[in-house]
C-alpha cells in the first residue's frame, strides 16, 4: 500500500523513527490478527473440512458405514447429467441477470448523473430494492405471478402457470434477481462515472461526436475499472444464487442451481460425502470465474472491493 509513502524517507534518514516503524508493523499485525484469524476460521477451515469429507462415502443416517473412496464422489458428480444440467442453469441465470443488470444499471447511473431535478429522489427509489431482503423479494415476485393470488395473469389476460415450466419459472426468478441487485450495479457504475472528467465528454461533443460515439470512445473506456469490478462481483453473486430459486420453485421444473443441489444432497438427503464434493466444486467454479476475470482484465486483487 502506498499510503505511508511520505513517512518512509523520514524513517530512513532518522534512526529514532525506524523503531517507530517497527512498532507500527507490530501494532499492524496485532490489530489485524483477530480479523485474519476469524476470516480463516470461518472459510479456510470449513472448505478444507469439506475437501476432506468429500473423499468419503458418508451418510449421516448411517455413520457406521463411512468409508474412504478417494475421488469417487467427484467422478459420480461429474459424470452425472444432473450436475451438468444444474451447472448450465446456473450459468444461464448468471449470464442473463448480469447482462440485464449491466445495461439497466448503466442506464440508471447515467440518469442519476445527468439528473437536474430529483436526483436524490431517484436515488432514494433505487435504494429501496437494495434494502429488501432477498427472500421477501422472491415472495413478492412469486405471489405476483402465482395462479391463485397473482395479479399478473389477469392484468395481461394470460392463463400461464408461470412456475409449471422451466422457461417461465426461470424468467420470474431472473426478474426478482435483477430487481433486487440492479441498485448495487447502478451505484458502483455511478461512482465510476463520477471519475470520468466532464471536460472529455464536452471536448468530444465540440468535435461533433454523437452520443453513441462519446459513450463508446470516451465514457466507457474511462470507467473500465468500475465496470469490471461490478461485473466480477455480480457474476460471482449470480453463480451462488440460492434464495430466489429456493423460495420460488425449490429447484423444481429444471430450475435447480448448483447451490440448491449442494443443499439438497447435504441437508435434505444427509449425503455428507457427496454434498461436500459439490461444495468443493461450487467453490472451485467461483474461484475459476474470479481467476478468469483477474487474468482477462489484469485486476490487482488487493485493490478491488465490493459488497
Amino acid at each position, binding site marked *: 500500500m502506498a499510503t505511508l509513502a*511520505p513517512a*518512509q524517507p523520514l524513517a530512513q534518514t532518522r534512526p529514532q523513527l525506524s523503531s517507530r516503524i517497527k512498532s507500527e508493523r507490530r501494532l*499492524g499485525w496485532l490489530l489485524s490478527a483477530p480479523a485474519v484469524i476469524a476470516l480463516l476460521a470461518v472459510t479456510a477451515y470449513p472448505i478444507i473440512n469439506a475437501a476432506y469429507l468429500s473423499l468419503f462415502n458418508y451418510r449421516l443416517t448411517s455413520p457406521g458405514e463411512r468409508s474412504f473412496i478417494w475421488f469417487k464422489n467427484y467422478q459420480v458428480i461429474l459424470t452425472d447429467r444432473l450436475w451438468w444440467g444444474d451447472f448450465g442453469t446456473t450459468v444461464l441465470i448468471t449470464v442473463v441477470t448480469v447482462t440485464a443488470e449491466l445495461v439497466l444499471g448503466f442506464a440508471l447511473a447515467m440518469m442519476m448523473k445527468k439528473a437536474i431535478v430529483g436526483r436524490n429522489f431517484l436515488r432514494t427509489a433505487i435504494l429501496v430494492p437494495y434494502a429488501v*431482503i432477498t427472500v421477501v423479494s422472491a415472495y413478492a415476485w412469486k405471489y405476483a405471478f402465482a395462479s391463485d393470488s397473482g395479479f399478473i395473469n389477469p392484468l395481461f389476460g394470460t392463463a400461464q402457470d408461470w412456475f409449471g415450466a422451466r422457461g417461465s419459472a426461470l424468467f420470474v426468478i431472473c426478474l426478482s434477481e435483477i430487481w433486487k441487485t440492479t441498485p448495487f450495479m447502478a451505484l458502483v457504475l455511478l461512482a465510476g462515472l463520477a471519475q470520468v472528467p466532464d471536460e472529455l465528454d464536452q471536448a468530444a461533443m465540440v468535435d461533433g461526436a454523437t452520443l453513441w460515439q462519446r459513450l463508446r470512445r470516451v465514457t466507457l473506456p474511462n470507467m473500465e475499472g468500475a465496470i469490471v469490478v461490478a461485473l466480477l462481483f455480480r457474476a460471482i453473486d449470480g453463480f451462488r444464487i440460492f434464495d430466489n430459486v429456493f423460495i420460488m420453485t425449490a429447484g423444481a421444473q429444471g430450475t435447480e442451481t448448483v447451490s440448491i443441489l449442494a443443499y439438497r444432497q447435504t441437508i435434505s438427503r444427509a449425503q455428507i460425502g457427496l454434498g461436500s464434493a459439490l461444495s468443493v466444486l461450487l467453490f472451485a467454479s*467461483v474461484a475459476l470465474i474470479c481467476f478468469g476475470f483477474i487474468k482477462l482484465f489484469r485486476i490487482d486483487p488487493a485493490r478491488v472491493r465490493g459488497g
Partner: protein
Amino acid sequence: MTSKRTRVEFVLASLVVIFFSLAPVVWIVSLSFKAGDDIDNKRFWPTHWSWDNYRTVFHTDLFTSALRNSIGIALIATVVAVVLATFAAYAIARLDFPAGKFVLTLVLVVSMFPAISIATPLFNLWRSIGLYDTWLGLIIPYLSLTLPICIWTLAAFFRQIPRQLEQAAAVDGATPWQAFRLVIAPLATPGMFTTAIIAFFIAWNDFVFGITLTSTNRARPVPAALAFFSGASQFQQPTAAISAAAVVVTIPVVVLVLIFQRRIVSGLTAGAVKG
C-alpha cells in the same frame, strides 16, 4: 443543452424507474392487508383493508421467536464484525503495514466464498460439537459475510481522515496505539456507524446459513422462518401470513437505509473505483 423535450423524457424515465423500484414492495404490503379469501382476489389492491394478518403473525410463535433470533443474532454479529474490522482496517489504511495487502487479498477471497460451500461442512461440524441450532452457530458463519465488507468500508473511511492528525499526535509524544484510540477512532465513529448498518443488513438478509444451520425456533432467523410458514388452517396457503411477516421485517430496514442513504451509498461504493 436541456431542451424541454429531453426534460420531459427524463421525467418520464424517472417515473418508470420509481414505479418499478416501488411496485413489488407496495404489492407485498397490499397482500398483507388482504384478509381471509380476499388474498386470492387476483387484483393488486385488497377489497377490504384488514389488520388480521398482522394479528395472526404476532400471535405465531414461529414468527415472534424468529424475530427475536434475527434481531439478537444480527446485532451481535454486527458488533463483533465492526470491532474486529475497525482494528484491521486501521492497520491496513493508516499504519506502515506491508502485510496489509495480504490481508486485503484474503478479505477479497473470503467475500467471494459461496455461502453454501461453508454451510454444508459447518452443518456436519456444528452437529458434532453442539453448535447446531444455536445463536453462536449462526453468529460465527455470519462473520464470513460481514467482516469483508466491514474491513473494506472502514479502510476507505480511515483513508479519508487527514494524516496530519496522527503526525501531530506523534509529535506530541503519543504512541501509535494512543493515536488510534484517542485521535482516529473518535473521528471514525460516523464511518463505523455506516458500516454497522451495512453489516446488520447483510446478516439480517441471510437465508443460506439460517436454513442450513437451524432446525427449531431456538435460533431460526426470520428469512428462514418465512419458508416454514403454514396457513391459518392446513388447507390454506400461507400467502397472507408470509406477506405480513415480510412487511414487518422489511419496512424498518427500508426506512433505516433511506434515512442513512447518503452515507450508505458512499460506504458501498468507496474504493470500488479507486484503490
